[in-house]
């Protein structure tokens, strides 16, 4: 009887464990996490670089003021990090953060508000000769203050609906003030933070090794003894590494085919996590080139795409899936599908949509068989399949499109010059936040990265209003109006399909949750290995 009870207890325990989310299972300490990284950063300075190649191997050495909740699949929920709490003044102009006590740098010194202030001053108000790629994102910040050792205060010029989200940036590493005071460039070539892992070595072009920081402020964390990030450019080599169990996980994404091959080869040894990805390819129209200055032509081009059918077909072969507007589907500010389907190019009736496209082209005086050049970036995934798909869709409304593929690194430099007629453009965010995601579409005099070369004060005004709105519903309404104007009424840009992130990883890896951003969730403090 006792034996039966034991067996029942074991079985029920196993069933419960299987049903529980990974972070609710009992974590195990030990082991080294091995992961390939497809890109290598030029320097170690998070304030200066903007590649995931920096985040994946170097984020575990640092903490940020706040972080995204590591178990939030939506990737938008703020969670404490070295700030344990925060408050906003009633007028929304002052944010006060209370810092944790006992947070240590890897050299043993204590981290205080002086370090947070020095780090944010470097990001927001960099001195002459110091590059900060994120300075523009904090234009509303008037000052950063440290009234006492454990309090940091940000004063804003105007209220902002996105300020807290902007502090969730995984790049905003907290550096040591004394080091910055001596040499503002020190962190470009050296590593020393408060993160869960300490730096062991970086062999350029090869790998980065980190080991558990015994003095980490979050007691019991991290679970891993260490990690090894291996730089690996070739995607086939990355897949082989996971398949050969030489690596546990690749944090960016694999293709649907890689996922299927890994699952077929390794079965239960592989766990697949998927999410809509906060990256999208969109098509820009150079408004200075005829006939793309005519909104009827632009509208016809978006109406030609059957996004719903395209989504089903392309998601089998490329890292794209959801039909999307200006926000990642399923996230707080995203337009629900039934409303999105009312916009031009999102109709479910493709025949009706194409008939309307042909009518508009005729009305605009564009002849049947009109030819133009579509500039695309020389990257296989997903630029190539999306480019081929769109050219075919445009042919179905009588357009003859020639594709000009430009080498990847030179691409944006060429597009910026303004010679392209219609071109592929790209956006990828570290967090789903309208201020970051919609900034791209502001008038060209406000944002030089608007390669469509248009000016639309109405759109700019809508952007500013939603950015200042602190009421969630009011902000949502403004974002919908912005989206309708951008994609339906003016069609300054048109969206293709939302990227789809696929991370097949060893089933031994627990405590890691996929989010829509491949820049998030790489501190590795919550990650553990079952064996």
């Amino acid at each position: 009887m006792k034996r039966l009870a034991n067996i029942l207890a074991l079985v029920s325990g196993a069933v419960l464990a299987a049903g529980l989310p990974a972070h609710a299972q009992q974590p195990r300490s030990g082991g080294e996490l091995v992961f390939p990284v497809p890109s290598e950063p030029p320097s170690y300075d998070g304030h200066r670089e903007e590649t995931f190649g920096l985040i994946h191997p170097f984020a575990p050495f640092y903490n940020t003021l706040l972080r995204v909740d590591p178990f939030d699949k939506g990737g938008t929920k703020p969670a404490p990090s070295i700030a344990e709490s925060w408050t906003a003044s009633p007028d929304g102009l002052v944010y006060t953060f209370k810092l944790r006590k006992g947070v240590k740098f890897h050299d043993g010194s204590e981290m205080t508000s002086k370090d947070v202030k020095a780090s944010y001053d470097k990001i927001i108000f960099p001195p002459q000769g110091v590059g900060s790629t994120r300075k523009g994102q904090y234009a509303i910040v008037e000052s950063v203050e440290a009234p006492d050792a454990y309090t940091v205060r940000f004063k804003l010029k105007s209220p902002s609906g996105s300020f807290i989200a902007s502090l969730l940036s995984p790049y905003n590493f907290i550096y040591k003030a004394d080091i910055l005071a001596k040499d503002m460039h020190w962190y470009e070539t050296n590593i020393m933070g408060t993160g869960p892992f300490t730096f062991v070595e970086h062999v350029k072009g090869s790998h980065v090794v980190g080991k558990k920081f015994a003095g980490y402020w979050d007691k019991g964390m991290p679970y891993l003894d260490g990690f090894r990030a291996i730089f690996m450019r070739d995607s086939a080599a990355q897949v082989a590494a996971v398949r050969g169990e030489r690596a546990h996980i690749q944090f960016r994404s694999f293709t649907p085919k890689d996922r299927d091959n890994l699952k077929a080869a390794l079965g239960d040894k592989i766990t697949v996590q998927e999410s809509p990805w906060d990256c999208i390819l969109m098509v820009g129209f150079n408004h200075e080139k005829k006939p793309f200055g005519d909104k009827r032509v632009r509208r016809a081009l978006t109406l030609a795409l059957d996004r719903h059918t395209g989504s089903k077909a392309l998601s089998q072969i490329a890292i794209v899936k959801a039909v999307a507007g200006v926000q990642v589907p399923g996230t707080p500010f995203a337009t629900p599908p039934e409303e999105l389907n009312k916009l031009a190019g999102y109709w479910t009736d493709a025949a009706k949509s194409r008939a309307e496209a042909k009518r508009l082209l005729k009305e605009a005086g564009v002849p049947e068989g009109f030819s133009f050049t579509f500039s695309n970036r020389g990257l296989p995934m997903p630029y190539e399949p999306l480019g081929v798909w769109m050219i075919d869709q445009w042919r179905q409304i009588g357009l003859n499109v020639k594709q000009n593929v430009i080498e990847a690194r030179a691409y944006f430099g060429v597009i910026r010059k303004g010679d392209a007629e219609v071109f592929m453009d790209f956006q990828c965010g570290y967090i789903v936040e309208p201020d970051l995601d919609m900034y791209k579409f502001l008038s060209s005099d406000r944002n030089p990265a608007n390669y469509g070369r248009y000016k639309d004060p109405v759109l700019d005004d809508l952007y500013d209003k939603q950015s200042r709105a602190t009421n969630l519903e009011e902000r949502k309404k403004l974002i919908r109006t912005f989206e309708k104007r951008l994609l339906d009424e003016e069609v300054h840009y048109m969206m293709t399909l939302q990227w789809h992130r696929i991370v097949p990883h060893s089933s031994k890896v627990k405590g890691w949750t996929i989010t829509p951003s491949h820049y998030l969730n790489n501190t590795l403090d919550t990650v553990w290995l079952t064996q």
Partner: protein
Amino acid sequence: MAFYILKRLLAIIPTLFGVAVLIFLLLRVVPGDVVEARYMGEGGQFQSQELMQLERKKLGLDQPLWKQFTTWMAGLARLDFGISMWTGAPITEEIKLRFALSLQLALMASTIATLLAIPLGILAAIKQDTWVDYAVRVFSIAGLAMPSFWLGILMILGMLIIFKWLPPMVFTPLWVNPWENLAQLIWPALAVGYRYSAVSTRMMRSAMLEVLREDYIRTARAKGLWLKLILSRHALKNAILPVLTIISLEFAFLLGGLVVTEQVFNLNGLGMLFVEGIARRDYTLTQALVMLVATFFLTVNFVVDIAYAWLDPRIRYR
């Protein structure tokens, strides 16, 4: 002989200068620069023009071309390659890090190629038109037809599917752990070595056939010399000259040209560094690598020429 060596040495200087001018200009014809590659690579929508100009100024890219060229030349004259525009680290350091792997791989692949090519080429020649000759020809034609990176992919897949094993992914120097080192490098060396042995095998076979038809070989046979002696003392010395050239030039190429194979096996070698340098528009690094490879090619060529002159006295008197 001394005059011949001096003449060959002096020819190296204008060749290197020509290479320097060409690579300097060619790199700048390609659109984009290192600052764009760094800050615009992922869209760069928040990047300000001031930041980009600041970075260009730091790297000297705002200087006129002639000034950039003379600065680079002055550095080269002092054997100073400068710093990488991408990482800011000294270029010698970047190259040193990868040189051991590339050199070892080139040596291993060349050794495999030589060990396969010379005996197989001789065997095919002395057994001309027999099944042995046909087998060697099939083996070498297969090697010519298969790119080494493709053979590498097949090897990796084979190891994964059949043995559920994959070579180590991080380079360990031979003197640190010979077993780990060989477990990683033997596979690319085999893939590349086989590919390059194919050319040399065919060259060895045809050179040997030609030599074996010479009068002096017939004379040697007629006076009753052993075949082994005829081959080693008389035929091989003459037949090996063109093979020596091919193997030497292949060795020079292997040092920096194994781009795809290095990618397939994830090797941190000079080939990958070359591609990354070009993709990132890292002018200083790419220029240094081109100069290094050119110097290496010219040196190998020089050594081969001297060896030719030493092996065949007719050459030095022409």
